[in-house]
């Protein structure tokens, strides 16, 4: 039994979600091969070769994989994946995009967003925005799986895998990359940060997010947001935490001016410690918070920044 894992990266750096996915693969058990598909991404493959538990890195460098277009990625993974028992990717926006194509073309189900491995064919996954946890058994010969990184610890980086180059260049020829707007920030990535501070509609406008950024900089935290704050245009979409945004589980999550709708809780309720700051003592966010402070955020956020 061998497992093919698909690495998450941006051609420059290997993303942390890959490490959690390798841990999930290790729990299934078997030889683990890690595919790095992209363009000019030798550096990523070198980093990937250090992940403990990986026996071989498959490096597919082609311009057609540069932006991980689903149509091209699916063809590559399909070609490589046929002889594996499991094909696994992090449940990132890239993995969610191409993996179901792979599953459909293999005529197998995809088990999305697993948070626990019970056995080689049985997995746990949250459903209904995390309001229930399903235990699902796959009846297929090849299991196609995406992994929610918050469910697994990151793998160590003290391994030494071999690197094999894959020569084939798949181009479905039906889709092209046009442009991208990548959010640049010096703060840690939302899904990898130990501390996350998020703002909601209560922030009032985008400028006021500066109050959170100041605190974030002192704590080395990432800044997130509720859907309402994104929809109102306060901050960009990649900051949304929740059922349909990013799933985070930091050591400390600070929710500021967020009411605590179930769709928001779905994205952060597995955080170790939750702090809620809200002026409405009835706000549902307080029912999941370890520490709640009923206060006007505009009074207390400057004080918090100053006292850190």
């Amino acid at each position, binding site marked *: 039994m061998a497992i093919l894992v698909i690495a998450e990266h941006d051609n420059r750096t290997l993303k942390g979600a890959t490490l959690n996915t390798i841990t999930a693969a290790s729990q299934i058990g078997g030889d683990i091969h890690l595919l790095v598909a992209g363009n000019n991404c030798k550096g990523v493959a070198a980093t990937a070769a250090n992940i403990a538990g990986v026996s071989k890195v498959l490096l597919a460098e082609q311009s057609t994989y540069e932006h991980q277009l689903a149509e091209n990625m699916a063809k590559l993974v399909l070609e490589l994946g046929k002889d594996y028992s499991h094909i696994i990717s992090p449940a990132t926006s890239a993995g969610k995009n191409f993996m179901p194509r792979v599953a459909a073309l293999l005529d197998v189900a995809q088990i999305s967003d697993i948070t626990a491995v019970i056995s080689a064919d049985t997995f746990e996954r949250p459903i209904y925005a995390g309001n229930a946890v399903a235990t699902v058994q796959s009846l297929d010969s090849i299991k196609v799986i995406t992994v929610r990184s918050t469910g697994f610890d990151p793998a160590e980086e003290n391994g030494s895998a071999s690197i094999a180059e894959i020569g084939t260049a798949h181009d479905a020829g039906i889709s092209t990359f046009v442009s991208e707007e990548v959010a640049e920030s010096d703060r840690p990535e939302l899904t990898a940060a130990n501390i996350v501070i998020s703002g909601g509609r209560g922030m009032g406008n985008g400028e006021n997010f500066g109050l959170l950024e100041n605190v974030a900089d002192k*704590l080395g935290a990432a800044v997130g947001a509720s859907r309402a704050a994104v929809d109102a245009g306060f901050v960009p979409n990649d900051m949304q935490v929740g059922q349909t945004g990013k799933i985070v589980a930091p050591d400390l999550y600070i929710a500021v001016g967020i009411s605590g709708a179930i769709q928001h809780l779905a994205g952060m309720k597995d955080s170790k*410690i939750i702090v809620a700051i809200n002026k409405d003592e009835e706000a549902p966010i307080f029912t999941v918070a370890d520490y709640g402070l009923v206060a006007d955020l505009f009074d207390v956020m400057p004080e918090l920044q100053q006292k850190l």
Partner: protein
Amino acid sequence: MKILVAVKRVIDYNAKVRVKTDNTDVDLTNTKMAINPFCEIAVEEAVRLKESGTASETIAVSVGPKSCQEQIRTALALGMDRGIQIETEDSPESLSVAKLLAKVVAEEQPDLIIMGKQAIDSDNNQTGQMLAALSGIPQATFASEMKIEDGKAVVTREVDGGLQTVAIDLPAVVTTDLRLNEPRYASLPNIMKAKRKPLAVKTPDELGVEMKQHTKLLKVAPPAERQAGVMVNSIDELLEKLQSEAKVI
């Protein structure tokens, strides 16, 4: 052009989810059901394309028991032209849904298929991608903006790092993200009118699809409950707790 929209009947997003005491599934008896919010956005996009003259015909299709005709009627009341129900048992698997939809795509030959990115019950986020693969056509998932130009769809996608724009040949599958548009409400006259719009019923047999089981649901349990915490009265007290009790800063 012709547009096909897939709509799923799901629990209303405001309704409380209860797990059955025997842990076999969630309990949906007497629960308010609705059209999946992402599908509602898909319907709105199709209707707008019709209103702007880009689309000539819009079709809403749902896979499930007879009850899902309710959601097809909602889509018709929102402005879709006709409906198709594919009769199956409750909660068909995504791969089966994709296979059934692929047959409808082959029959109807739409130029564009719009779907939700995710159903809020299964949280699968896969059916649209599977349909695109089975039909051998491109996809643009998590769309927050979309234009049709020169036989292509140019779609801006919400991705982890920000926004990505792709151009895909038609026919194609587009799956909607929350910010693509703001769905309208159905007016009473339109709800009445929708009752007379055509709604065809088909079976997997007629479409030549075998409903194979690929997964088995062994258990459904409520999530781990969080312990209720404490309220603090000041930033000083909060910092004290975070430093000496929780030890997270």
